[in-house]
Structure formats: structure tokens, C-alpha cells
């Protein structure tokens, strides 16, 4: 009798478990399909094509490691693209974090019209990248742009910005710093969360403003700084629209319908890894080499993602 009810209970438990699994599967199903079709399958396929010779017309043929050795030792654009991507990951990210923290600090100190200032600081972040890039190519136009007119009026030698190999990446950095509103908001929220008592205690100890920033503010917001740095680097790995649009517009070479444009103007100085994937795949139909560069990009992104998740388990949050 008792074994009967135990069996019954076990059966009920089992059917509940089956029901729960089905429920979970049903709720997760959009993503399960999306993950398989738009992530897992193309990723495996990218690895496969990295060993093949394929131009999209003739059937793919096995090439072994040839694509890999070609990209690393014989493709003249690969190392410049890698260098540019790393330059952006270091300089552009550093500028954005410093400026984002600076404006975040400034906005917490402003008393009069704080809401208005916040909106004005935030607005450029929203400007669509293509529109913002076009605007900056115009503003930094060496001949007639307002920025160089102002610089020359004050007597500062004006660079050629997007038309100069040495100044193209700094010009892109100015554009990126202009759109720093996302970081400003994140830093602002973090700064307002620093306990007031710590500042009061530090002030009683007779510390300077710099010491308070260094020993109270910075330790409190360091997880957010790390978050900003790592997500910034991951963003740098995907940096595509601004450099390619700036290069197209500044060089005056316009791709019409169906035409492709060789990115990197001037002289590969703005070529990044994602653009190289595009150039190899859709400019030269060398899908094999494009997939090799794509996998390099994948490895870099995943390495930084792992860093973010290890150092800041907080990103995943307390689900339990």
C-alpha cells in the first residue's frame, strides 16, 4: 500500500519534471533556434571555410593551413589592420574612459541646470554613426572646415585630420570622445553610489581633493572602470562603420550600388580587422582568408569577454 503511493508520488514528481523541462524549452525556444542557426552553425562554418579555397562561384576545395599562413605572413594588410585595431583598443578606449569619468564627475558637481547639462552631454551619443561621421568629416575638413578655421585663427597649425595617415585615427578618437554619453551616465550613477560618509571622514582628516578622488572615489568605482575598459575594448574589436564611412567620404571615392570600396584610406591608416574581413570577403571574394581574419577577431573578443566575466562576476548577477 505504502509502496504504491510512493510510486505514485515518484510518477507525479517525474511528470512534473518533464513538464518543467518542456516549459523551459518552450520559453527558451526562440533563443535556442537563434543560437543554433545564427551563432553555432555559422561559427563552425567559419572554421570550415578557413581551411578551404572558396570564391562563392566554384565549389570549395581543401587548402589546409594555406589560408592561415597567407594571412599571417603574406597578406600585407593584416598586420597594419591588427596594429590599428590595437591602437584604437588602447588610445581610443583610454580617451573615452578618462573623458567619460571626467564628464561624469563634472555633472555630479554642477548645481545650476544639471538636467540641461546632462542632456547636452548625452545627446551626441545618440547621433547615428553614419551621420556623426559625415558631420565630423565636414567639421574637420582641412580646407574649409570650421575646426581648422578656428585653429588657424588662434595660430595653431591645423592638421589634415581624415586625409593624413598620422591624424586619421586621432580624428576618429575625437569623434568617439564626442559620443561619450553612455559612459558618462554609467559613471555618474556609480559616483552617486559612493557613500557620503567616506567623503566626510576623509575631509575631516584634512585630505586634498585629489587624495579624496584617489583613495575614496577610485576604489569605489573601480569595477565600473573595469567594465568600461573591457566593453570599450570589445567595442574596438567591432569598430567598423565610422572608419569606413570616414575613409569613403574623405577620399571622395564613393561606392555606388553593388560596388565595393577598399577601406583604410589614407594608406591603410584606418583599416581595422572587421573591415579587413569585409574587404577580403566582399571585395576580393577570398572567403577562406576572410574567415581566418574573422577567427582572429573571434579569439580576441572572447579573450576580453572572459577577462570581463572573471574579474567581474557581477555582470552575470545574483540569479540564485
Amino acid at each position, binding site marked *: 500500500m505504502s509502496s504504491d503511493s510512493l510510486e505514485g508520488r515518484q510518477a507525479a514528481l517525474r511528470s512534473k519534471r518533464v513538464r*518543467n*523541462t518542456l516549459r*523551459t524549452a*518552450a*520559453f*527558451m525556444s*526562440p*533563443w535556442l533556434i*537563434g*543560437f543554433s542557426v*545564427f*551563432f553555432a552553425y*555559422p*561559427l563552425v*562554418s*567559419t572554421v570550415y571555410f578557413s581551411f578551404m579555397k572558396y570564391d562563392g562561384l566554384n565549389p570549395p576545395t581543401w587548402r589546409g593551413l594555406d589560408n592561415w599562413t597567407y594571412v599571417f605572413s603574406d597578406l600585407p594588410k593584416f598586420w597594419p589592420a591588427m596594429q590599428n585595431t590595437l591602437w584604437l583598443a588602447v588610445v581610443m578606449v583610454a580617451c573615452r574612459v578618462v573623458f567619460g569619468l571626467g564628464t561624469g564627475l*563634472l*555633472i555630479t558637481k554642477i548645481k545650476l541646470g544639471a538636467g540641461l*547639462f546632462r*542632456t547636452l552631454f548625452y*545627446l551626441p551619443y*545618440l*547621433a*547615428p*554613426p*553614419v*551621420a556623426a561621421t*559625415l*558631420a*565630423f568629416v*565636414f*567639421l574637420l575638413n582641412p580646407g*574649409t572646415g570650421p575646426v581648422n578655421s578656428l585653429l588657424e585663427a588662434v595660430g595653431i597649425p591645423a592638421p589634415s585630420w581624415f586625409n593624413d595617415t598620422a591624424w586619421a585615427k586621432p580624428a576618429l578618437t575625437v569623434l568617439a570622445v*564626442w559620443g561619450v554619453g*553612455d559612459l558618462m*551616465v*554609467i559613471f555618474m550613477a*556609480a559616483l552617486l*553610489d559612493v557613500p557620503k560618509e567616506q567623503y566626510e571622514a576623509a575631509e575631516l582628516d584634512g585630505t586634498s581633493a585629489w587624495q579624496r578622488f584617489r583613495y575614496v572615489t577610485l576604489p569605489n568605482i573601480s569595477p565600473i572602470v573595469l*567594465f568600461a575598459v573591457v566593453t570599450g575594448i*570589445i567595442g574596438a574589436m*567591432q569598430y567598423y562603420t565610422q572608419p569606413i564611412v570616414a575613409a569613403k*567620404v574623405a577620399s571622395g571615392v564613393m*561606392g555606388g*550600388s553593388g560596388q565595393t570600396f577598399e577601406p583604410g584610406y589614407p594608406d591603410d591608416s584606418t583599416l581595422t*580587422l572587421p573591415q579587413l574581413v*569585409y574587404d577580403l570577403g566582399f571585395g576580393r571574394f577570398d*572567403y577562406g582568408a*576572410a*574567415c581566418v581574419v*574573422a*577567427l582572429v577577431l*573571434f579569439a580576441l*573578443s572572447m579573450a*576580453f*569577454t572572459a577577462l570581463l566575466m572573471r574579474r567581474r562576476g557581477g*555582470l*552575470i*548577477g545574483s*540569479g540564485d
Partner: protein
Amino acid sequence: MTSSVSTLDRSASRTPTAGAAEKTARRKALLHWIAVHSLGIATALFFVLPFVFVFLTSLMSDQQALTRDLTPNTWHWDNYVKVFETPGFLTWWKNSLLYAGLGTALVVVSSVPVAYALAKFRFRGRHLSLLLVISMMMLPPQVVIIPMYLFWAKQMDLSGTLWPLIVPMAFGDAFAVFLLRQFLLTIPDEYIEAAKIDGCGELRTLVKIVLPMAKPGIAAVALFQFFYCWNDYFGPQIYASENPGAWTLSYGLESFKGAHHTDWNLTMAATVLVMAPVILVFFFAQKAFVEGVTLTGVKG
């Protein structure tokens, strides 16, 4: 001058410096206030002036836009009419709205149940699923673009349209799932349990109890997605470049400069017209947006 001397005298003759210290402290605070607000104004100029110059140039004649002048001599509001009369411009506008509108709706509908399961269900593989969602979120789109393009162009024969960009949005977006999950974590389990005790099924609980409480999170996700689609350049470039009839504003804008070689005035007017909707949307939904940005970085 005299008053400051007299206070100095008085404080020197009596108990030392209480009044003077207060006064220097107040003067210091005033100087600090002035410094902060001056810096604020200078920074605001850096953020705002590009918009101002673009707008002013958009109202110049084509000749004047090539000069160093900062303000228009005569105000050419008809530049905006000319932009709208450019062949294709209205089509790009329509395509952008289609891509952004449909994309946003699909992403919200498909991402909410996934985020709900990740936030509130207990199941094996939950942690792994979340790690994979984050990995997808961090993945540059260029990593998988070759097989994706081959799939849509060769197998599905859909190149020259925006469908290869819209269809995947019916299967959840990693960023939307992540953001919504972070938001749903903040909803106490007690509400969900109470609804179940009252006899609500999972789907009804989600629709009747959780969704109304998750409105700010959903609004933030919808805004981000709308902006993402509106701003997307890489997607339309890969799938739609061969067919100008399928271009979006973000993609078409760049070719606009190509078609109007020296007409910076018209190009800047078109630029204003691409920026305007995004900025209008922001003013109507500022709070939801700022909350969303904060959520990505701080919560959890």
C-alpha cells in the same frame, strides 16, 4: 577693501580668525562653483557646437557651404525640400522605419520569454545558457558574416532585401535577452508565486503579472533595438548594397554625399534629417533610455 581690512583687524584683535575662515571658505566655494560651471559650459560647447555647425551649413547655399563662413548669408530652408525630392530618399526613410519597427517588435516579443526563463526558472544549463548569451552579445558581427551571407544569398536567395536582417530578430537578440534578464531579476519572486497560487499558468503569469512590472525594462530594450536598426550600416551594406530600393537611411546617407559631390549643404541637411528622429525619440523617452544605459553597467 575697507571692510575686509576691518574684519581682519577685528579677528586679529579678538579670538583668532573664525569670521575670516568662514569668509575664505565661502569665497573658495564661490570660486569652485564658478570653475565647475565654466568647465561645464566649455564641455557643453564641445558637445553641442558640431550640431550647430551642421545645422547652419544645412541652410547655406551650395556655394557658401564651400567657404569658411560659419553662418548662412541667406537662409535656404528649401534645401530640406530638395533632400526629400532626391530620388530614393523617401524609400530609404520607409525602409529604415520598416527595419527598425519590425525589428524592434520581433526582438521584444522573442526575447521576453527567454529572459524570463533565464531570470526565474531553475534548470540545468541555465548558467551555461547565460554565458553563451553574453558571448553572443560580445561577438563582432563580422566573425560569422561569410557563412551568414552565403546562407541568405545562396540558399535563401534573399540578397538585395532587408529580410536577412529582420528575420533573425524573431529568434531573440542576445543584448535584449541580457538586459531584460537583468531587469527581471529585480522583480520579487513572491509576485510570481502568488500568481501561481491563484491558478495562473506560466504564460498568464508572464503576461498579466511580470510584463506590467517590466515595462521600463522593455521600453529600454525597445529603444536600444530601434536605435540599433536605425543606425545599422554594416547589415544593409552586406545584404542590400546591390539594390538601392532596399537601402536604409543610414546606408543611403553616405551615397548621398557621393551623388552630391560638392553639395555639403544638402548633405548636411540630409544628415540633420537622419539625426532628427533619433533625437526626437530620445526627448520623449529620456528616462527609460538613461535607465537602460545604467542597467547595462551597474546593476547585477
